[in-house]
């Protein structure tokens, strides 16, 4: 009964237009009172919900994006990308995906991609004449590769929970990540070819144009090199890397465009607003997550379905369904903690490899980050692009299908995941 009230209240308030963060807060408060749970947990959990070092990357990558926009760096990157692929059907859509693949190689966070790189991509695509909803949809979909392609904070957490080799998990994520990138590019191509989306196209660039654009973009193109080099050489952690990007952009922006105090201040204030809105949701979702944990809701669901398993294929299909549903309602890391124990039990009884399971879990759960009602990447893109949820999710529809197809492929063809780990890091047995 209380669970029914919980769901009705949550969706009711959301539909009436109460912001997500306050909907979670009100729903949690009402549920705690109705179910007789310790009341003080509301404030205790929410106030401590963002006590985490890795979240610092969110404002920093947002600021990096705002600064690149404000200081004219983005335009140069996209001018360069433009001369390379502007003649291919789907043009900047593909650039958006490839940029995210490169970004995923240095970041483990999809929100950082959507918030930082995303604001750059959306602005540039809009300036190039792409519709805002298409730009936002491609950005949201491609950001989900962040935690699949290594390095990945999510896979580190899974490795900890499952006592599995993080090295093997990282290698396992590489091919499925590239596969999702490829699938997204196929969708972009199909959408443009069938005329569902317009992708403004320019004639192929001359060699001189390419050289000029390359030269103008060179300082910006060096950023990933410095970053990756810095991370690989152990100069800084991925979280600290976000600050290095900010400083680097400040320097190259000031050299090429001049130190424009007004632009920098505006970038800073925009960052404060966007990151506060995003982080406030994360803080409040800690209460939400606590309630869901203490009521053992997902585990009950899995337990019920466990009785239905007849074959390995059915088990995998059910795992995918559960992950999709839970992913819609919960933040990924919180859901991992809840589900991994049960999933491991199921996996071992059906002889499913734990690395394969981990990568499948992450690939599938990432879909939930771009779906309502709880989707951090979705919200980040909505804020960054200033677009309404309905409009964005409608544009995302074909990408959802592509991502579900990739998840099923990864789930049912273990070789996609296990090829690289078995080749490069074979286990003892």
């Amino acid at each position, binding site marked *: 009964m209380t669970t029914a009230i919980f769901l009705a209240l949550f969706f009711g308030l959301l539909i*009436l237009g109460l912001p997500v963060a306050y909907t979670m807060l*009100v729903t949690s408060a009402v549920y705690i009172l109705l179910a007789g749970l310790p009341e003080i947990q509301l404030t205790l959990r929410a106030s401590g919900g963002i006590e985490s070092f890795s*979240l610092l990357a969110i404002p920093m990558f947002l600021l990096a994006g705002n600064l690149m926009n404000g200081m004219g760096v983005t335009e140069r990157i996209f001018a360069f990308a433009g001369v390379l692929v502007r003649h291919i059907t789907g043009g900047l859509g593909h650039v958006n995906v490839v940029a995210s693949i490169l970004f995923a190689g240095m970041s483990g966070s999809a929100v950082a991609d959507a918030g930082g790189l995303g604001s750059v991509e959306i602005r540039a695509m809009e300036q190039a004449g792409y519709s805002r909803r298409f730009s936002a949809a491609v950005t949201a979909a491609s950001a989900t590769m962040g935690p699949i392609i290594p390095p990945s904070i999510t896979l580190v957490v899974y490795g900890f929970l499952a006592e599995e080799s993080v090295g093997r998990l990282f290698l396992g994520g590489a091919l499925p990540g590239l596969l999702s990138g490829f699938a997204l590019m196929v969708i972009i191509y199909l959408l443009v070819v069938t005329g569902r989306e317009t992708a403004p196209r320019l004639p192929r660039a001359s060699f001189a144009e390419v050289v000029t654009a390359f030269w103008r973009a060179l300082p910006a193109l060096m950023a990933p090199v410095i970053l990756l080099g810095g991370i690989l050489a152990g100069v800084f952690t991925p979280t600290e890397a976000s600050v290095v990007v900010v400083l680097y952009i400040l320097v190259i922006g000031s050299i090429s465009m001049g130190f424009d105090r007004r632009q920098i201040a505006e970038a800073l204030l925009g960052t404060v607003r966007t990151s506060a809105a995003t982080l406030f949701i994360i803080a409040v979702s800690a209460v939400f997550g606590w309630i869901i944990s203490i009521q053992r809701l997902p585990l009950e669901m899995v337990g019920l379905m466990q009785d239905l398993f007849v074959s390995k294929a059915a088990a995998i299909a059910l795992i995918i369904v559960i992950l999709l549903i839970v992913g819609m309602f919960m933040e990924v890391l919180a859901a991992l903690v809840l589900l991994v124990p049960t999933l491991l039990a199921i996996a071992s009884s059906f002889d499913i490899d734990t690395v394969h399971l981990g990568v499948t879990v992450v690939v599938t759960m990432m879909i939930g980050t771009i779906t309502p009602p709880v989707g951090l990447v979705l919200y980040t893109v909505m804020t960054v692009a200033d677009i309404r*949820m309905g409009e964005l999710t409608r544009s995302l529809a074909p990408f959802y299908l592509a991502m579900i197809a990739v998840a099923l492929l990864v789930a049912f063809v273990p070789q996609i995941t296990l090829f690289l780990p078995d080749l490069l890091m074979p286990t003892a047995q």
Partner: protein
Amino acid sequence: MTTLLSGLHRLTLWFCAALAVAIIGALSVQIVSRYVFNAPVHMTDDIAEISLIWMTFLGAALVYREGGHIGLDLLDTLTRPALRRWLRIVLHLLVVAVLAYVITQVRQLYPLMSRLEFGTVPKGPLTSKFVLILLPFGIGAGMTILFALEAVWTELRGAPAEADT
């Protein structure tokens, strides 16, 4: 009253910007002290985390006043204007109620949290867990209540909500 709240809004916005700068500064000091001097400063991670917490909870109040929080807007096109106005008022009052509840809990947590320390930050009455983590939550809630009541007042007077920064 609105002028006063606008002043508070502007002041807090710049305070939050200063906190963002503090995050950049703290993490830069960490990297430089570790790699240039091989003598890492430990407080920097804590300073960055605390700045993030303050920025989030105070910033969330500002975003509330600007109407910038993420949510669905299905009913904007569906219902009659008068009904929409009453709906907005009810939702603002709901936020006031839940945040007032939060503030009573922040007070309840004072006896415990004021005795606890946070990470490697030096000990002192101004660096207890209460001041560093719960106070921003409470102040943010208080400011949001003010802004919500302002919005209710504006709705009742029938004037469109002011959206300045």
